[in-house]
């Protein structure tokens, strides 16, 4: 299913105007870390469809600021901007992600409203996963774990 992307919070991976191919997923789908998924605003503020990257998996502990620690270990994230500081001050997170839930974040850590703000999201809330970007042609690419 083709969709448009809008916003700053997934920079540098996604840019406003990008056209993506997304795949609807079933409720029981197990998502992988790094998957870019979309869901409705979990706060119920609007019907806006939000797209974020899965960072924390069920059962894991997450401490997240600009960088992320999973179960106490720094998560390597090659998709982030180069100038992200290796700092974990003022981190937010959860001690244990409950079953069938995910901790999601935008790649642009300073400009993203995500699980640091609205908490983990249930697997049942995830509507699908971004598969590839087809426009602009020069940035055609698969959107996999470590795009």
């Amino acid at each position, binding site marked *: *299913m*083709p*969709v*448009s*992307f*809008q*916003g*700053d*919070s*997934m*920079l540098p991976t*996604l840019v*406003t105007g990008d*056209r*993506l191919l*997304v795949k609807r997923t079933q409720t029981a789908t197990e998502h992988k870390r790094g998957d870019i998924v*979309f869901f409705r*605003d979990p706060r119920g503020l609007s019907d*806006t*469809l*939000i*797209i*974020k990257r899965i960072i924390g998996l069920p059962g894991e502990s997450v401490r997240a*600021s*600009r960088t992320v620690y999973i179960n106490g270990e720094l998560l390597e994230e090659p998709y982030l901007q180069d100038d992200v*500081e290796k*700092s974990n*001050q*003022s*981190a*937010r997170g959860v001690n244990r992600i409950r079953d069938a839930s995910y901790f999601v974040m*935008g790649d*642009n*850590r*300073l*400009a*993203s*409203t995500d699980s*640091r*703000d609205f908490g983990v999201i249930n697997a049942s809330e995830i509507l699908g996963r*971004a598969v590839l970007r*087809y*426009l602009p042609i020069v940035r055609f690419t698969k959107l996999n774990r470590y795009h």
Partner: protein
Amino acid sequence: MNFSQISVTLRRIVNPDITLHGHCDVPCGIYDPKDAQLAAETVEKMMTLMDGVEPTSSATRNSLIRYVAAKEVHAEKVKHEVRIIWGDYFKPEHLEKFPDLHTKVWQIMKTASACRQGVDVADAANLRQQVDEFADMFWATKS
């Protein structure tokens, strides 16, 4: 697939019906400190105008009351706008860059209250400067 169907399909590929948002409560331009700056300027302007009024007639008393009312409303508006940006926009990571952010907001709250309570133009000038500094912090985090 006929020509019409191909045309519709191509249109949907180029201009999809669905938009996914890389959502942020903020940087999509929703927040802007200019309203707080404008309100602070208004407070200063009202205080300046009040200084020059001799309430010797109904007309001048009416003007004075209007200036006071505007000062009251806009000083409160400064507090409201600053609180929104402070509470909803700024993230803990921004404090690494501006560790005095909380102090700055606290000062603005106090100065705006002083502007409501009193008529000292120096308080209004101070409020405007503090709000400008707060706005500078905001824009620095977005650059």
